[in-house]
């Protein structure tokens, strides 16, 4: 095995220099002069174009805008879609429990990383570290408080995204936040529910990942 390594590297090092270009113009990715409102609008358009559902809301304590609190939107949506067992991200479990205590017809809040349980719940609720306006993508950053499977194996995925966390492009999100020096085990960009067009190029939503993606867009910018 170490022979293979040495042999491959030796062959590559023996090759003459080839074409290269020392400098690149990144402005095609860099130059975006979008206001935050532009970004919110674009995010919604792009996310909805791939069948994500985007609902505007606010944090429960925020009374500055005439928008519903995210927990009430969540409760309504779960009721409308028959979500009875909702797996949630750890940081959201306690607040949600507190908000929902005493209210009737709320789904069961399940805090777990157990594989078989996650395969059996109706929906998974996660946070999003940020969003990408240009493509309508969520930036998920699973880790100690949020299992990777939470956004993947339940048939529905619901994500909380703050408008203040939108970035124009992936390049901006990555470079402005110094991802390269702090990559966790897993970062996932999610753009819409799972889909395929492998059969006759017919677009079908819901293959192996969630069939439904609901983005609770918390207006805090």
């Amino acid at each position, binding site marked *: 095995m170490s022979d293979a390594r040495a*042999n491959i590297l030796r062959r590559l090092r023996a090759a003459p220099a080839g074409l290269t270009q020392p400098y690149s113009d990144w402005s095609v990715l860099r130059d975006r002069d979008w206001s935050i409102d532009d970004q919110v609008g674009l995010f919604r358009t792009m996310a909805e174009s791939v069948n994500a559902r985007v609902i505007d809301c606010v944090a429960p304590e925020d009374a500055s805008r005439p928008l519903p609190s995210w927990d009430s939107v969540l409760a309504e949506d779960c009721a409308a879609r028959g979500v009875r067992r909702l797996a949630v991200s750890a940081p959201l479990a306690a607040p949600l429990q507190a908000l929902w205590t005493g209210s009737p017809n709320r789904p069961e809040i399940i805090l777990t990383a157990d594989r*078989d349980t996650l395969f059996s719940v109706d929906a998974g609720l996660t946070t999003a570290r940020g969003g990408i306006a240009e493509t309508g993508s969520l930036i998920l950053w699973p880790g100690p408080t949020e299992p990777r499977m939470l956004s993947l194996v339940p048939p529905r995925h619901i994500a909380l995204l703050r408008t203040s966390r939108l970035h124009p492009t*992936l390049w901006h999100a990555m470079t402005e936040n110094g991802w390269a020096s702090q*990559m966790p*085990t897993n970062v996932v*960009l999610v753009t819409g529910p799972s889909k*395929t067009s492998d059969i006759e190029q017919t677009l*079908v939503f819901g293959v192996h990942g969630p069939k439904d993606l609901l983005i609770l867009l918390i207006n805090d910018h």
Partner: protein
Amino acid sequence: MSHSSAPHDFRAGIDAGLHDTTLRANFRRAMDGLMTKRARQFEDPQEWTRLRALGQEIRQRALSKLPDLLERLEENCTRNGIRVHWAEDVAQANAIILEILQQRGITTVVKGKSMVSEEMHLNAFLGGHGIRALEADLGEYIIQLAGQMPCHIVMPAIHLNKTQIADLFADKLGTSPDGQDAEALTAIAREKLREEFRTAGAGISGVNFPVAETGTLCLIENEGNGRMVTTVPPVHIAVTGIEKVVENLEDVTPLLRLLTRSATGQPITTYVNMISGPRRGADQDGPQEVHLVLIDFGRSRVYADPETRQTLQCIRCAACMNHCPVYVRVGGHAYGGVYPGPIGKILTPQLNGLADYPDHPSASSLCNACVEVCPVKIPIAQMLVRLRNEKAGQGTGAVQDAGSGASRVEDAAWKAWAATYSTPLAYRVASAALTAAGNALPASAPLLKAWTSVRKKPRFAAQSLHRTLKEMGVADE
């Protein structure tokens, strides 16, 4: 690499493809769709020009320091807890994977889409050792059931229509063949595979962009199978060609944009999965082990020549085949090997030798449709010409089996042609003879025969342009 079998019979494949009307209709419909979707993504020619220049530069820069980047990738992956393996050939790579699986007593693996694993014939190899390897990408799942090879590197089952797929599922899975649309067929596959994801011992995937700077493996996909196989089973094994590494994390961003828009006309895929190690610290899930197998399989030879090295810039978007007038008519299976279409025509003979793939370089009209859409500006037509030179023994000998197509008859014919066309007097005599008597050549003459099967014989003019212009008094200076 030895020649274990007879050369690939491209002509038989072409013949089969051309005469299968269902197949041709399936391909035409699919390629039209893909071309239209791609075109909508690149409506701004300025943006396209600048973005692909950036893509080309990033790929060329990475290749220019490939050995250093591979070492850096290994170092950073290792630091992240990813175990890195190196394989020069298929046998080594398969042995590495088999050992990992056998040591852990794993008998079922689920797979994400990986063209490298097709190069390895991995499923058959594992099957021979009692390990079940199940394709999880819908298209790959379909063709695995059908016992076929992918016909397209992005859309592996695009040669089949839904009726054919419904019949296949009925035959292999016992579902009803009637009234199944794409949605119903997709639901069948979802149901069948869900339990497999939950219980498989390992997941195997390819990699779109391995990042040296951070030791990160980037995988893109739409279905979620790629995330499933890299997240749920306790072991994840990634396989990738050594040429794919990029230097910095930010390099992924333009390549990602170019790849998804070129491949399927999407601004981005549903999932972009960046894996930087097995679960660690307080992580709640994710595989306990991640392995990366770096494979050569002839790539270092392609790398050795600065011109052919450009082949390795490829990011596997398949735009070249989607736009290819030959591919759309003969289908992906005609090409043999793993990579069809224009990229396959230049890559396959370089990886496997011109002797085994003698007809690949010539099966192009050099129309340049592929060159026009390549997001990293691989000069595919120039590469085809280079391979023709190598085959005829007029290259540098850098390509495996160079000179294997040399023909004394052809060489003599071109020498005679060159002697005539480079000597004004000889050319004048020849053109006078052809204009006077060329039309007497029978339509069944050797080269004319192929031409006249569907065309009238070309007619020589009664008098050449040279003579006509001389008579008109046009200056000869």
